[in-house]
């Protein structure tokens, strides 16, 4: 089973103009992945599926991940010679950088014919607001059909080239995308007088005066049978 670097080199040889890079995975499982550009994605996928040495014929898992804007503070230590001739001081300069957020679709590919392990592809969208399209790989593997619809339903990534892109888990009239990090759950709330924690705050916010219909708890609290 070739390492991601070897696969990247073979792909670059095969598709000269494509931007393909390896994304390292620090976890002990060391499952590194290949970041693909949008243009050649479908051809690369078809090549990975039909290549005799790889034969990645099963797309086992399609996942969406939401990476919102992140403020990255890079502290660089630089030694500045002290003008007054004293020992050189170490100065930490903090550069604040806003890393633009993006939505990512991850594909785990396996080979049933040769039985070897995951080759992971990553496709990233431009940003999280308007450029949210990613080429769909359903034409290459039908396994992605339902899972890509789920990514569209829960993350809002529009997969171009998908035969039937509709919501799959939420109902069609649902507007928001629940799995995004900045998703605010609807505040539909039914009276529930449990007197503790955030449930209590929610109750107070919704029902300043508890509705009269609240069932009157029987006075005698009979202890549950031991």
């Amino acid at each position, binding site marked *: 089973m070739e390492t991601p670097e070897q696969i990247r080199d073979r792909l670059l040889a095969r598709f000269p103009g494509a931007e393909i890079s390896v994304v390292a995975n*620090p976890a002990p499982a060391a499952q590194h992945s290949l970041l693909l550009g949008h243009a050649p994605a479908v051809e690369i996928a078809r090549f990975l599926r039909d290549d005799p040495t790889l034969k990645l014929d099963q797309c086992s898992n399609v996942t969406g991940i939401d990476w919102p804007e992140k403020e990255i503070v890079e502290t660089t230590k630089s030694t500045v010679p002290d003008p007054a001739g004293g020992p050189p001081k170490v100065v930490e300069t903090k550069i604040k950088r806003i890393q633009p957020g993006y939505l990512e679709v991850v594909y785990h590919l396996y080979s049933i014919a040769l039985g070897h392990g995951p080759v992971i592809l990553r496709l990233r969208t431009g940003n999280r607001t308007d450029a949210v399209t990613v080429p769909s790989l359903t034409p290459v593997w039908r*396994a992605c059909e339902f899972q890509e619809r789920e990514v569209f339903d829960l993350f809002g990534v529009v997969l171009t080239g998908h035969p039937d892109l509709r919501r799959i888990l939420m109902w069609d009239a649902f507007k928001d995308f629940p799995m995004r990090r900045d998703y605010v759950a609807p505040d539909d709330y039914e009276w529930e007088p449990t007197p503790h924690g955030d449930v209590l705050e929610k109750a107070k916010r919704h029902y300043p005066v508890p509705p009269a219909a609240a069932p009157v708890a029987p006075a005698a609290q009979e202890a549950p049978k031991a």
Partner: protein
Amino acid sequence: MSANDFSPLAPQAGSHVREVHDPLHGELLEVSMGPHHPSTHGVFRMIVTLDGERVMKLKPVFGYLHRNHEKIAENTTYLGSMPYTDRLDYLCSMTNNWAYAIAVEKLSGQPVPERAEYVRVILAEITRLLNHTCLAGFLMQDCGCSGTPLMYAFREREKILDLFESLSGSRMMCNYQRFGGCRVDPSADWLDGARKLTDNYGRFLDEFETLLTGNEIIMARTQGVGALSPELAINAGVTGPMLRATGVNYDLRKVDAYGVYSRFDFRVPLGAHGDVYDRYMIRVLEMRESIKILQQALATIPAGPIMDPKAKLRGFRPKAGEAYGRIEGPKGEIGFYLVSDGSPNPYRYRVRPPSFVNLTVLEDMCLGQTIADAVIILGSVDIVLGEVDR
């Protein structure tokens, strides 16, 4: 076809039956089977377009049991999600736990002691027995037997659930496995109970097969129905007994050889036609193989710690990174994809549910069959809505 306004909120005039005029076939009947239908195994809905008896189009609609298990997992700790994995495929909680535990162990590089690996294999194979027995019962119930095979299947299931209850405390919601081992060390008489169960299970399977496998009516109803070609199965990501019924030799216990499966010798049955009868037979033959594995595992289970001493129960913070762990669940390949950013809560927690992906080919199998067959084909796919909708 008109715009798709089948969402539950859209107002539905009259019953869910609409005449659809298709120039090619004349009067088509569009019927919505489910979400509350006796034969759809839970809240699953099929919008079937019928030309008389024949199925022309079949659109599965699910999401009725969607509780966004993955969002909940992002707001609780790694350990906190373990009891929720029981609720995914609520028939096989042990294999769900194991899949999650393997994924987290891959993410954090947590070693697992010998005895725990053996116990995990034993519990996974017992869960496979339970799931395949239940499936055979439900499938025959769809074929029309008035409950007899289902009751026999449930009689055996009770014995297995008693074993789970005496080990983990709850029949179906076991919450038994931890990262780096298991929660409770099975006692000696529990292991004897498991040995007794596996020895008697062969007799039950023989009786079950004499009742069903040779039955001419079942052969007439299921052979040649809902055939699936191997190429389509592989391409559509179908896994588990449904894939092996089409003849593709792909069993993660042999391919990945995770846990200690490499120490046991067992065979993987393969079908030839990929129809409903093959899927039923593959599951019965797999049960016989599971009995062999169980007998070997129960015979050679080593002593030793059940939990890795260095495993941290609370304050578990895997380093940043991601991992995808998968096992051969009774319904197919169940996988967990975890992305961690060093905090006690997972950054992204994704479940790869086998029955959800296996449903991709439901329409391909049902086209051209009669509506009675569509019910059986759905039964043979073996879906559990907790896992499909998550």
